[in-house]
Structure formats: C-alpha cells, structure tokens
C-alpha cells in the first residue's frame, strides 16, 4: 500500500453565520469571521489516495487523472468564489475549514475509481488546517 498526495491551491471568500442563532450569539461565537460581506483565504488542499502500486505503470494512480478530478470537482467550483453564496453545500452549512474538508471529500470520493481516497487536508492558513478521513 502506497499513499500518494497531490497539492492544489485555491482562493475563496466566506463568512461564518448560523441563522438559528441571534446576531449577538453569531458575533460572540464567530467574531470577525461573522462579517456578512465575507473575507478571503488562500487555501491549500492536499488530497491523499492510497492503493497498491500497479506493476505495469509503477503508479498508485495516474497523477494526471487525479489532477483532472481535483480541477473539475473542486477548483472549478470553489476557486475565486464566495463559498456561502456560490457553492451549494454551503447554503445551509457553515463553510468552516472542517466542513470544507468534508465537502471536498464528498465531491471527490465518488469520482475516484483508480485509488482509494484516504485523507482530505485543507489549510486555511499555514497555521491552521483540518483533516477528514471519511469518518462518520
């Protein structure tokens, strides 16, 4: 079993707001992230797949295929977008780094056939990242 990680970058804006909470609660819990006009990050995404090394190609999976799936399923949908307003998953779900990792997993998992998705890691900044392993 070998693990293969591909890195990608995208930039997007978001804000944190739960309509079930009062404005004061939203402000208290989310602080500056509650600004309704949004703020942005340069996200770094690391997608790790795993599988046996194919004896013929020497690959766990074709990197070009992984890159194409990442571009199509994630970057085309999220790069230079306002996550709350333009990505359907976040209409009713707060686009925290944790939820972003889960949403990206759910987009990629059904599209990856050649290898098994192992981990989605999303860096919001170099000092903060979330990991999702598909755990319930």
């Amino acid at each position, binding site marked *: 079993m070998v693990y293969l990680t591909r890195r990608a970058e995208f930039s997007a804006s978001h804000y*944190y707001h*739960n309509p*079930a*909470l009062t404005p004061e609660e939203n402000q208290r*819990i*989310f*602080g500056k992230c509650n600004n309704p006009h949004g703020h942005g990050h340069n996200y770094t995404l690391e997608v790790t797949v795993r599988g046996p090394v194919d004896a013929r190609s020497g690959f766990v999976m074709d990197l070009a295929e992984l890159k194409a799936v990442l571009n199509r399923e994630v970057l085309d949908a999220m790069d230079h977008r306002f996550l709350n307003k333009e990505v359907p998953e976040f209409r009713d*779900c*707060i*686009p*925290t*780094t*944790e*939820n972003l*990792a*889960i949403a990206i997993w759910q987009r990629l998992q059904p599209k990856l056939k050649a290898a098994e998705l192992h981990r989605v890691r999303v860096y919001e900044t*170099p*000092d*903060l*990242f*979330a*990991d*999702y*392993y598909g*755990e*319930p």
Partner: protein
Amino acid sequence: MKAHLTRRYRFSASHRLHSAEMSEEENRRVYGKCNNPYGHGHNYALEVTVGGQVDPRTGMVCDLVELDDFVGRQVLERLGHENLNYLDAFKHLVPTTENLCAEIYHTLQRGFRAAVVEKVRLEETMMNSFEYCGSEVEGAVIRE
C-alpha cells in the same frame, strides 16, 4: 462527522541535553554539541491536533479562541524565551524534544477541556520533528 483540526504555534527556548545518570564523558558522547554546558536554543514549531464531531451549530470541532488561549497561557508563555532546564518539568528530565513533546501533550490532556487532544507534533528545527499521541509505554518516553 468526525474531523481533525490542527493549529500551529511557535516559541523559542534554550536547553542543554545532559543526563545526571551518565558520566561527563558519556554525556558528551551521547549528546554531542547539545551537551554544551552553556546551553543553546531553538525556534520550535508546535502543532496541536484536536479531533471530534463537527458541531452542527458552529461547523467547528473546537473553538479556536479557547485553544489559542489555553496554548498561549499554558505552553507558549510558560516555555517561550525560557531555559527549559530551569523549569520544574525538566528538573529530573532531559529536555529533549521527545520529552518536551510529551510534556506539552500531558499539559493539554490535563487542562484542556474544549476538545479531545489527539496529537502534539513538535519541530525542533526544519530538519527534525517529533510526534506524541499518548502512550501505553510511558517509560519509553520519560528519560530521567
């Protein structure tokens, strides 16, 4: 759904690696330049990983303000710009990065209640790092 969140911090401290159980010669042989009696320092980078269910109300595993506050008070203020050998925790323990990593892990386990602390990772330099997730064989980590 269960997610894992990692926050990265930095602090600088000095130390000297020297074991009271070894002779002067053995200390010099085992620890090399790190045995210099005057000590030396590092810029440490600390990664704290917490894990748990994503709270549907907040979308978060852990309130980052609480984590930053705890790490700030209990780790960064306590260790930052100190000589580690002079701290109570290292009176009878060699302040290797393995032991420092475990000490920080136990500090978090003892006092941080806002989320489950899963792992502490500590970079001593850009070329080496240590990870600790708790251990059944505690004695293997604690060297006196």
